[in-house]
């Protein structure tokens, strides 16, 4: 019988003998391999994960494209197959203005972005000229979703293939670090498709939902492109209520609208209600109050509103409803919808606290107004 209690490990592995070549090889060989091929091994391991993510991104963009083409065929009844035109749209790019000399860049960005929007609207409408505004805005948003996913896939794939081609591990590191955030965003964008197709309010629509209800039963007028204004009285004060024109999928042009309102009737304060991204660890659908223009996007609308407010010395108050990226662009959650009444009462409290009788207040419901009329 073998006595397992009496084994000498030093003797078995040759630990006591420094000249054991087999043991030396066991230690030294991996070190040599890692010195010369370490980056390539890391590249192989990392690229496996990135490849999986790219496959997912590819499926997202294909899904978005198919959904868009199906929706166009179903709702627009185009005279010819829209596939070729849509595929051309997906590859459109926007060259942002030179920022070496940043003076006046906001006007240039606004011009470029609006030119693209106008072009897309005109060409989508040409597929079926009798299409109504509601369907047109939905299709334009679906097109934006498909274009964004297409672009995300192309950029990530490019970064991955370049690193692989050059066998360059450091080149893949930034992609590896940013990929979880890109995937979160891409997944959220993909999940937004059903809500926009069905015309359901999204989390970002909480601002228009709050102001839209206040605008019911009053006369409304168009003050800027896809943007409407209503006027009503509240405890001796004059309220100007502004939001994008629903129930279509649009954010309107609040910057132009504020300019036109201030030129005619200068308000004493501006209150902006918008959805805001919550921080990690924060609960969803909580509200917060603050100062400054609460409005997202590329910054042109915010710039315009801030400039008008500064020139006219109008304080801007903000109420935000916190939510995640996914909640902001997908079907509104119950918690967010339940905050609407609370936010309305916060607005009235803010008005009482910061204005006197006879003064006027501009209240802006900022966000995408899909499924939210006025």
């Amino acid at each position, binding site marked *: 019988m073998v006595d397992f209690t009496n084994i000498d490990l030093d003797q078995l592995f040759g630990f006591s003998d420094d000249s054991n070549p087999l043991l030396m090889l066991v230690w030294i060989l991996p070190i040599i391999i890692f010195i010369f091929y370490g980056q390539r091994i890391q590249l192989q391991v990392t690229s496996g994960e990135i490849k999986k993510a790219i496959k997912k991104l590819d499926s997202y963009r294909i899904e978005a494209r198919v959904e868009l083409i199906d929706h166009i065929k179903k709702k627009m009844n185009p005279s010819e197959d829209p596939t070729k035109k849509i595929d051309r749209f997906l590859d459109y790019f926007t060259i942002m203005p030179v920022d070496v000399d940043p003076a006046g860049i906001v006007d240039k960005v606004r011009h470029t972005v609006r030119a693209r929007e106008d072009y897309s609207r005109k060409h989508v409408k040409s597929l079926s000229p009798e299409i109504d505004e509601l369907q047109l805005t939905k299709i334009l948003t679906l097109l934006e979703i498909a274009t964004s996913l297409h672009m995300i896939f192309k950029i990530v794939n490019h970064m991955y293939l370049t690193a692989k081609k050059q066998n360059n591990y450091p080149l893949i590191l930034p992609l590896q670090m940013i990929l979880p955030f890109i995937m979160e965003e891409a997944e959220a964008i993909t999940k937004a498709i059903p809500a926009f197709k069905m*015309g359901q309010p999204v989390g970002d629509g909480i601002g228009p939902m709050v102001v839209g209800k206040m605008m019911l039963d009053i006369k409304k007028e168009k003050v800027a492109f896809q943007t409407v204004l209503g006027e009503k009285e509240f405890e001796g004060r004059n309220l100007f209520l502004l939001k994008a024109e629903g129930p279509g999928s649009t954010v309107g042009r609040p910057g132009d609208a504020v300019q036109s309102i201030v030129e005619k009737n200068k308000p004493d304060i501006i209150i902006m209600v918008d959805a805001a991204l919550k921080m990690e660890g924060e609960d969803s659908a909580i509200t917060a109050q603050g100062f400054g223009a609460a409005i997202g996007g590329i910054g042109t609308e915010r710039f315009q509103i801030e400039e008008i407010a500064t020139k006219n010395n109008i304080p801007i108050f903000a109420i935000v409803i916190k939510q995640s990226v996914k909640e902001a662009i997908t079907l509104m959650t119950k918690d967010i919808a*339940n905050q609407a009444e609370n936010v309305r009462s916060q607005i009235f409290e803010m008005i009482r606290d910061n204005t006197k009788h006879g003064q006027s207040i501009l209240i802006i419901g900022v966000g995408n107004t899909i*499924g939210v*009329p006025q």
Partner: protein
Amino acid sequence: MFSKEKIVVAFTIEKCKSCSMERKRNFKEGDYLFAELSKCDSCEGIMQIEKIFGESIEK
């Protein structure tokens, strides 16, 4: 490990403008906020869509 797959179901909440009675039903295409669609079962008032939201339900 054994958590069930969750799906989001869209609901529409209708509220009577007269008696404030609320009714919850599944969302139908064409529903949008503040639309006046039907009559109240209890007071014959007008029901208005108050909220549209999604709720996660285990499959």
